[in-house]
């Protein structure tokens, strides 16, 4: 009964009030794919931090700018699944090398988002989009653990 992977797309504006909606959708996608509870939490957190950074840095807090999010589960031959998450903004283009987490020992508000994203996801890649803006690709892989016995 396994059907092929089909992506799902969300288009939001850069308004922080949309973040809970995206989190709810991402959480449900992860649940359906059979991710364990901790992994679901980390994927949700990673996506939220990435969107918050787009709102704050790519759009400087403007709330009416477009962000597109694609969620694409990839089923591998070995039975594992990778969830690929792509986010596209039309904001300030950024030098990917400038995006890095700060030293955690320096305790101050802020500067934690990139560190969290790296911790939560397996892969993270920023690249300039054709026509302006940035495409951020994040991926989370995990083995299929769906039990055969009814749960």
């Amino acid at each position, binding site marked *: *009964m*396994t*059907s*092929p*992977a*089909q992506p*799902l797309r969300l288009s939001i504006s850069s308004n922080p009030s949309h973040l809970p909606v995206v989190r709810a959708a991402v959480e449900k*996608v992860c649940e*359906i*794919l*059979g991710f364990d509870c901790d992994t679901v939490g980390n994927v949700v957190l990673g996506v939220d931090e990435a969107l918050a950074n787009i709102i704050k840095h790519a759009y400087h807090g403007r709330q009416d700018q477009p962000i597109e999010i694609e969620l694409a*589960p990839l*089923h591998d031959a070995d039975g594992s*699944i990778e969830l690929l998450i792509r986010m596209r903004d039309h904001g300030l283009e950024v030098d990917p090398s400038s995006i890095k987490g700060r030293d955690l020992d320096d305790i101050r508000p802020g500067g934690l988002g990139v560190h969290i994203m790296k911790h939560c996801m397996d892969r993270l890649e920023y690249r300039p989009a054709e026509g302006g803006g940035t495409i951020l690709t994040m991926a989370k892989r995990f083995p299929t653990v*769906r039990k055969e016995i*009814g*749960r």
Partner: protein
Amino acid sequence: MSHNPAPAISQVRRFGDVAVVDVQGDIDLSRSVEFQQTLLRILDEKPSRMVINLEAVPYMDSSGVASLVKVLSRARRANTLLVLASLSPRVKNLLEITRLDSVFKISANEQDALA
């Protein structure tokens, strides 16, 4: 998202010739066919009573209700008493909207359904 959905029936418990069926998760178009097939298979064993415990079903849509109606008509022919137990608020609301709350025998909890 296209992954094998988790099975709708998580457990069947038997007390003599009574079958208590535990259902788990939302029953919608992605799971109602499997839900119905499993219920019909349990009916094939001709229990005197089949209690469908819906406590762990937060949500159901018309496809789930259609499965239940199908199972009910088969149960009647097999002389099995079908009881729905422990409906969540949204499932209860759905049965009211479709006026099927007067067609099904519905119990507030499993004890009542077994009484």
